[in-house]
């Protein structure tokens, strides 16, 4: 989407136009992009809600079990408002979500908001630690591979990242446990220590999950960083700088990198959205009490309202990352500013 929007600005913009009008134009683009994200989120919520409609059989019957009398089933249908038309129940559900009250779990009757809140914080912590580890690493490898493109180093990085992109996360996870916990006894195997009082304990319980997640999204991020920088390095002003004798380090850091920051920020945000797939696997393997584990357990017990609430949080997070990526690429396009 960013492509089509951004392209509109790349017309015959001239540098001399007034800056202020350009800023307004940029603001409009960004606001429109945010509007598109909200619309997509709305569409996503409709699809997620259809999940319950597709559910074979009667939800009330499912909760009460086969031995329930028809009268109790009818009463529960009434209290759960299952007799209302679908669109009314959708609106009810949607406003419940928005006001922080996504309903109750089908399985244990607990409030979904309560079930989710602590788990969400745990997952965010895991994602944050992974981001801190993986971004500097991926940037370093991506940038160096772009600078020395075509070299043996670049080719090795290319083959390794192509290979690593297509390895299932649970292979990384199980291999890490086999090596560091079973063979070397450095780290505890599948145990997650809730009490992380010392820094060492914190490291011990997070090393394997964070390491696995990092390996899972590292190749993607390094490849996209490399691609973004290579685009800039191929431009004619960089060639000009090279021809007039700018030293390679300065060429990359002062000339190419500032213009590649937008695309690189875009690449990082998009790669981070791959965290969402990895976190489901990692939380399951390491028995980490996060939102993804909650969701997988809810799917096993067919606890649809809980699955829906978790799915909406994940989709919102994903759309937010993609939105950040697109805004980064809009803001970093200087041609859009002078229009």
């Amino acid at each position, binding site marked *: 989407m*960013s492509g089509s929007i951004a392209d509109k600005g790349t017309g015959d913009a001239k540098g001399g136009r007034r800056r202020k009008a350009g800023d307004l134009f940029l603001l409009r683009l960004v606001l429109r992009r945010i509007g598109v994200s909200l619309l997509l989120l709305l569409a996503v919520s409709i699809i997620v809600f259809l999940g319950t409609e597709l559910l074979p059989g009667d939800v009330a019957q499912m909760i009460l079990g086969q031995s329930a009398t028809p009268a109790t089933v009818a009463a529960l249908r009434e209290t759960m408002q299952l007799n209302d038309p679908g669109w009314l129940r959708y609106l009810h559900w949607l406003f419940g979500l928005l006001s922080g009250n996504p309903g109750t779990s089908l399985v244990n009757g607990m409030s979904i908001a309560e079930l989710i809140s602590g788990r969400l914080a745990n997952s965010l912590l895991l994602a944050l630690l992974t981001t801190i580890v993986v971004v500097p690493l991926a940037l370093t490898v991506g940038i160096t591979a772009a600078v020395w493109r075509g070299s043996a180093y670049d080719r090795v990085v290319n083959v390794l990242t*192509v290979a690593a*992109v297509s390895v299932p996360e649970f292979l990384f996870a199980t291999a890490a446990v086999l090596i560091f916990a079973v063979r070397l006894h450095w780290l505890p195997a599948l145990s997650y220590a809730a009490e992380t009082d010392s820094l060492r304990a914190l490291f011990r319980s997070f090393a394997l999950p964070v390491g696995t997640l990092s390996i899972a999204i590292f190749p993607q991020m390094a490849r996209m960083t490399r691609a973004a920088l290579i685009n800039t390095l191929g431009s004619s002003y960089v060639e000009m700088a090279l021809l007039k004798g700018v030293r390679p380090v300065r060429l990359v850091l002062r000339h190419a990198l500032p213009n590649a920051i937008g695309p690189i920020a875009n690449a990082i945000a998009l790669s981070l959205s791959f965290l969402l797939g990895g976190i489901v696997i990692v939380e399951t393997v390491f028995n980490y009490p996060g939102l993804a584990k909650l969701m997988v357990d809810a799917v096993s017990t067919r606890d*649809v309202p809980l699955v829906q609430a978790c799915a909406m949080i994940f989709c919102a997070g994903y759309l937010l990352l993609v939105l950040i990526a697109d805004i980064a690429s809009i803001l970093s396009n200087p041609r859009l500013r002078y229009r």
Partner: protein
Amino acid sequence: MSGVAETAIEILPRRRARMSLLGWIAATVVVLCLALAVCGPWIAPYPAGTIVSQTVFGPMTWAHPLGIDYLGRDMLSRVLSGARYTIGVALPATLIASGSGTLLGMLAASWGGAADQVISRAMDTLISFPSLIFSLVVVAALGSPAIVLILTAAVIYTPGCFRIVRSVAVGINETDFVAAARARGERNLVVVLEEILPNMVAPILTDFGLRFVFIVLLLSSLSFLGLGIQPPYSDWGGLVRENIDGLSQGAPAVIVPAIAIAILTVSTNLLIDSLPGRKVANYGG
């Protein structure tokens, strides 16, 4: 969203016209894996379901080269027989995803206008689901019979194929030979199938390989979570799950099926990456 396509498309340095050695090795491995999907159970040393050993989670030995599983079954036979569930679900799903994505992409490009807009926006909506989350929602509602898995994976990966095909087809649609065909009065479907399609076979095949990799990974992840193909049938992801308790004992039974998946997906991806004349590398959803 289309930022994926924007930034990830990368013009690789011009490759040699012939496939590299790595490419040939990868191609051989892919063909071997496909062969296993057909005749795996016949060449397995033991029937996949028989208990052959008293030692649970046994190590690799000459009699059982890949070890023993959690019930005392031969892992080599389990892996050989599991190939058909991994590939047998992923391949039809890829065919449907790639087929519908290609058809919709070409039609959208040739129609243009409002129809193009509607199809493209629908695809944008589908692509704003993280793939694993989408399949979890579907499995929560419908359970996981093979047909549901195949269709879910197909729906998830249609938009990715659609985008690539549409962007290539838009370019071809504006060439002179398409204009000539339209001037001859050919019907749109004929133009699409006889003029546009033959000129984009290479990107479609490349994309097919990538989708196959993504779908194998998605379905394996679902099986690993216990939400994919259900026992007694076990695909490779399912084999990892059923033996996960052996992880703390360092049993080969846990890691071997995961490596089997990686061999299939990595060699497919390396094969695509080394195809001669390949210019565009896209690793978007």
